[in-house]
C-alpha cells in the first residue's frame, strides 16, 4: 500500500473542470461500472473510476499529472452506462482540457484560448498582423494584376504567408517542447507513485521504440474501433486525422517546391497547380475529407444532447471545418473566376491556418501531441494498453 496521502481539495479545480464539460463529476458514486465497461482501460489501476473520485475531491495533481486521462479516446461507452449520469467520458475530456492549459505556457494565452470572451481578440491578432505587416511591406495587394489568371499569391504574397506561419509553427513547437518535458516527468512520477510501472526511469531509446510501436495503432485508429458507442466518431475522426496528414504532406511539398524553385532560372513556381497534378489530387481529397469529417463531428455533437460539448469542443471542430471550407472555397471561387470573393475567402483561410498553428498547444488539438506521448509512455511503462 502506498503511503498516506494528504488530502487538500482544490475547489477551483473542480469548478474549472465543470466549466469545460465535467460538471457532472460529482454525481459519481464510485460503482466502477465505467472502468468495467471501458474497452481500452488496462487491468492494473483502470480508469476512469479513480479519475472520477480524484476529480470530485479536487485532487488536481493526481489527475492532471497522470497519463491515464490521455489513454481515453472518449468513445462514450462509460457515459452511456453510468447509472448516475456522471458522464465519465466527458469528465476525462475536461481533465485533458485542464491538462492542456496546465502544461502550456504562457498561461495567460492558454486561458485566453479557452475563454469564449477572448475569441474576438484572438481573431484580431492575425487580422491585425496580416494587414499591418502586409501594408508596411507591400506584400498585400488589394488590386493585383490578374492578366495571367487568378492567383492568390498576387493578392497575398507567399512571403507574407510564411513570414507569419513559420514563426507561429516555431512558437508552437517550443511551447510543446517545454510542456512535454514537464508532462513526461510528471506522468512517470505518477506512474511510480501509483504502482503503474516497474520502470524506474524514462529511458530515451526505449521510449522512442515504444513510440514507434504505437504509431500504427494511432494511424489505424484501433482504439476507436474497440468502442461500442459512438461508432460514427471513428469514421469522422479517421477522415479528419488523415485529411490533416494529407494536407501536411501537400503543404510540405508546395513549400519545398516553391522555395526550391527560386533557384530555378525561370523563377519561382507559384500556384495554382494544375488539377491534373497528383499533389493536387491529394490536396483536394484531403480537403473533402476534412470537410466531411468535421461536418459529421458537428452533426454528432448537435444530435447528442447527453454528451457534453463545451466551448473547447466547438472551438476546434468549427475551426477545422472552417479550415476545410475556406480552403476549398478559395479554390472553387478562383475556378469560378470570382476574384474578389476568392481573395476574401483566402484571407479567411489564412487566418484559420495561423490560428490553428499558433494556438495549437492551447487548443483541444494539442491532444495530437499529448495523447501520442501518453500512449507511447503507457506502452513503455508496460500498462498493457495496446492489445
Amino acid at each position: 500500500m502506498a503511503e498516506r496521502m494528504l488530502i487538500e481539495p482544490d475547489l477551483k479545480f473542480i469548478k474549472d473542470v465543470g466549466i469545460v464539460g465535467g460538471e457532472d463529476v460529482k454525481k459519481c458514486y464510485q460503482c466502477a461500472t465505467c472502468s468495467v465497461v471501458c474497452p481500452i482501460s488496462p487491468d492494473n489501476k483502470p480508469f476512469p473510476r479513480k479519475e472520477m473520485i480524484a476529480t470530485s475531491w479536487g485532487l488536481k495533481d493526481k489527475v492532471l499529472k497522470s497519463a491515464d486521462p490521455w489513454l481515453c479516446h472518449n468513445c462514450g461507452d462509460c457515459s452511456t452506462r453510468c447509472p448516475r449520469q456522471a458522464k465519465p467520458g466527458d469528465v476525462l475530456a475536461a481533465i485533458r482540457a485542464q491538462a492542456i492549459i496546465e502544461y502550456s505556457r504562457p498561461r495567460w494565452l492558454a486561458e485566453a484560448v479557452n475563454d469564449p470572451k477572448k475569441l474576438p481578440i484572438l481573431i484580431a491578432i492575425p487580422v491585425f498582423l496580416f494587414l499591418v505587416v502586409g501594408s508596411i511591406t507591400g506584400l498585400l495587394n488589394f488590386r493585383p494584376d490578374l492578366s495571367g489568371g487568378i492567383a492568390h499569391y498576387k493578392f497575398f504574397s507567399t512571403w507574407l504567408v510564411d513570414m507569419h506561419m513559420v514563426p507561429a509553427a516555431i512558437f508552437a513547437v517550443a511551447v510543446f517542447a517545454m510542456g512535454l518535458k514537464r508532462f513526461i516527468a510528471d506522468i512517470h512520477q505518477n506512474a511510480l507513485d501509483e504502482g503503474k510501472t516497474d520502470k524506474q526511469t524514462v529511458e530515451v531509446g526505449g521510449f522512442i521504440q515504444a513510440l514507434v510501436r504505437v504509431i500504427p495503432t494511432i494511424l489505424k485508429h484501433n482504439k476507436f474501433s474497440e468502442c461500442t458507442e459512438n461508432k460514427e466518431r471513428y469514421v469522422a475522426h479517421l477522415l479528419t486525422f488523415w485529411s490533416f496528414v494529407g494536407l501536411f504532406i501537400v503543404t510540405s511539398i508546395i513549400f519545398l517546391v516553391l522555395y526550391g524553385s527560386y533557384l530555378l532560372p525561370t523563377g519561382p513556381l507559384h500556384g495554382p497547380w494544375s488539377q491534373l497534378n497528383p499533389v493536387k489530387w491529394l490536396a483536394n481529397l484531403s480537403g473533402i475529407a476534412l470537410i466531411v469529417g468535421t461536418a459529421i463531428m458537428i452533426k454528432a455533437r448537435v444530435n447528442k444532447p447527453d454528451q457534453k460539448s463545451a466551448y473547447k469542443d466547438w472551438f476546434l471542430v468549427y475551426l477545422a471545418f472552417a479550415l476545410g471550407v475556406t480552403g476549398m472555397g478559395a479554390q472553387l471561387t478562383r475556378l469560378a473566376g470570382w476574384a474578389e470573393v476568392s481573395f476574401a475567402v483566402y484571407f479567411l483561410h489564412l487566418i484559420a491556418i495561423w490560428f490553428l498553428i499558433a494556438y495549437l498547444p492551447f487548443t483541444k488539438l494539442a491532444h495530437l501531441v499529448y495523447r501520442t506521448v501518453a500512449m507511447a509512455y503507457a506502452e513503455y511503462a508496460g500498462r498493457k494498453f495496446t492489445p
Partner: protein
Amino acid sequence: MSKKYGVYICHGCGIGESLNIDKLSETASDEGFAVKTCPAFCGKQGLEILKQEVAGGVNALVIAACSPRVLYDTFRFDGCIVERVNLREQVVWSHPRATWPAPTEEQKDDETFIDHVQMMASDYLKMGLAKVKKIDLPTAFKLDALSRRILVIGGGITGISAAIDAAKTGYEVTIVEKEAALGGNAAKWRKQLPTEYPFEKSTAPVIQAKIKELDNFPNIQVKTSTVVARIAGQPGDFTVTFKKPGEKIEFDVPFPLPPEMKVDESGKELEAEQLHARYLEYNQGRQDILTFDPNGEKFGAVVLAAGWRPYQPQEGEYAHLGFGASPDVVTNAQFEAIAAAGKIKRPSDGREAKSVVFIQSPGQGNDQDFPYASSVTSLVALKQAGYVREDYADGKAFVIYQHMRTPGLTENYYKTVQQDPGIFLTKGQVVQVSQNGAGLIVNADDTLLGQPIQIKADMVVLATGMVPATKDDPVINLAYRQGPGFRDNAIFNDYADSNYICFPYETQRTGIYAAGGIRRSMTTEESMEDAAGAALKAIQCLESVNRGVSVHPRSGDLTYPDFFFQRCTQCKRCTQECPFGALDDDERGTPKTNPTRCRRCGTCMGACPERIINFATYSIDSVSSMVKAIKVPSTDDFDEPPLRVLGLICENDAYPALDIAALNRLPWNADVRFIPVRCLGSVNVIWIKDALSKGMDGVFLMGCKHGDDYQCHFVKGSELAEIRVKKIGEALSSLALEPERVAHFEVAIDEYDKIPQMLQEFMGTIEGLGPNPFKGF
C-alpha cells in the same frame, strides 16, 4: 348453546379422486353426525346446500374441504360455529397417491392393507368433530365505561402530528410534554431534512408551524411541564395520573420487586404474604397498582411519542477519534447546537471551522456504525456538511462512512448534497484523529481514493445515534404487575417495538402505540407520517374495545381468556408469562384479568398448571379432545402398525407455511398429524402428555424463529414453548420415555420448502427410538 351439527365433505380440488368419500362419510355418521357431500361446496350449488342447512337450524358446521386460510368469507356463517377440516392442503395435495397408493379392487376389503392417506383424512375429520363438540360461540367482553379520549405522551413533532391527526377525526386528545415548551428535539435545529418532494433541500424546521396549527383544534388539550405518574386500568378505560416532573406523589407507579429481593437470605423463594410485605416496603409511599386514583383522568388509548435523546459517548469512549481529548471533536447533536447558534466556530478557540470531517462509523476493525445510528445519522451528516458550505465559500466538509443510507426519495437529497463541490464523500475507516497544532488530523484507511488518506480538520463530528426515551425511563409508567415499562425492548435494540419487522406502532402493551424516534430512529418527515399511523392504531384500539373484540394481531377476535378461579393456586405463572402484561394479581396472587389488554394468544392457557384458563373456541379440553380423536394404530390393528406423531403448530407462520408447501405439492410424512395453535406459547404440556400416554410416538412444536430477528406474533411465545419443552423432557425421563420424543422447531413462513425435510428427520429420530411403549394401553 345448543348445537345442531352438520358435516360437509367436499369432493373438489382432487379430494374426491384421492379419497374414498363414502368411507369418510361413514366415519362421521358412525359418530352420529349428519353428513352431506358435494362436488364443490364453494360453488353456487354447494353454498346453497350450506345456506339451507343453516336455515334449517344447523349451527355447528364441520366443512371438510380446503384450508381455513382460504375462502374464509365464503364459509362464514354468522352465529354459527364453523370448523374447517383441511383435507385439500394437509391431506390430498401433500400426499399424492403415486407415493401412498390407494387400495386396488382386491385390496379394498383387505383388513391388513394400510391406506395412509385415507387414515389421515379420517383422523383430521374426527379431530374436527371432536373440536366442534367442545367449543362454543364467543360472547364479547364489554367494558362498563369506555373513554374515547386519546393521550399523547410527548409534545415534539411526532406527538403534535399524532394529536392533530387524531383530532381531525373528531377524537379528544391530550398532549403531555415534560418540558415547559412544546417542540422537543425538532425545535433545536438550524435546518431540518427535506419533508416533501423532490426531497432535495434541507428546509427551515416545520415544528413552529405545527405548534401553531394546534390552535385550530379545540379538541386538543396541551399540558406542558407535565409527566405521566401512572397509567392504570386497561385500554378503553385507562386512569391516568399526571404530575410535575420530579414531583413525588402517592400515585407514582410502584415497581415490582427486583429478583434479589424475592428470596430470603438462604436464596429460598419467599411466601406470598412475605413477598407482598416486601413489595409494600419497597414501594413505600406509593399506592398499589390496583388502587385507582380517584382524581385520575380517563383515557381510552395512548400514543407514545416520547422521542429520543442524543447518544452521549462515555468518558474514554472513542478515544481513538479524539473524543474527550479535543473539544473540537463533537457529536452531531453538539455540532447542531453550534450551527443553530450561528456560524460554525471551533469550540476550542472560537475560530472559523472551515474544514470539518464527519465520521459515520467508529471503525476499529469492523464496519459497525455508532450505537443507535441509522439512515438518519447518514442524512444528518449530509445536512450538517451543508452548514459548513453555507457558512464558508471555501469551506470543506468530508463525510467518511461505512454505510451511507439514504432510503427512498432521500436519495435525491444525497444527490443534491453530493453535487456541492466542497463536500467530499467516501466509504472508509477512520483509524485515528489526533491533534495537529491548533487543528486536527484525521487518518482514514480503505477509502475510495485507493490509498490511506490524511485530512487536516478544524472540527470532527461523530455521527452518534438517537437513543429512545424508553431506554432511560419507563415513560408510560403503567400500573401493571409486570412493571411500569416494556419488558422485552432489549430484543428490539431498546426501541419500543413488538416485532422485528411487522406490526408497526404496536408495542408490547395493548392500547399503547409508539411513533417517531422512540420506535425507530427516524427523520422529521418519517416521524410525521409515523404519527398518523400510531393515531390510527389508537383509534383502531378504541373502535375494537368498544365492540369487545381483540385489537391486534387477532383483530376482531371475540374470545378472551376465561379463568375458573375456584381452582386457581395463585402460582402467578400466567401473570408473569403474559407477554403483554395483561394480568395483574392481588396481594394473594390471584390474577385479575384485564381483557382489553389481552391479545388472545393463550400464553396464560399454556402456562397454567391447573388448566383453568380457556377460550370459548380454544381450550385445554378442545385440543385434548382433538389429540384423543387421533387413531393410534397398534399391533392389534396391523402387524407393523405405522407410527403416529403429533405436531402442534403455530397458526401464524408454520400453518401457512404448510399450506404453501402443499400448494407447491411438496409431500411430507404421512404419519404426522397437525393441530394448529394460536401461538406456541399457548401450548399446555398436558396436550403432550395426552398424546404420549395415548401411545403416540412423538410430539413436536413448530413455531416462529426467535433470537435477533424475533418473528413471533406474540413477542415471546415460541421461546417460552422451547423452555417448556426442555422442562417436559426431564419429566419424560422419569416415565422411561426418551426426551427426544418431544422436539421444538423454528420455521419462518418463507421456509415452507424446508418443512418436509424437518419432519422426515424427526420421524427418523422416532424410528430410531422405536414405537412408544405405552401404545395399546
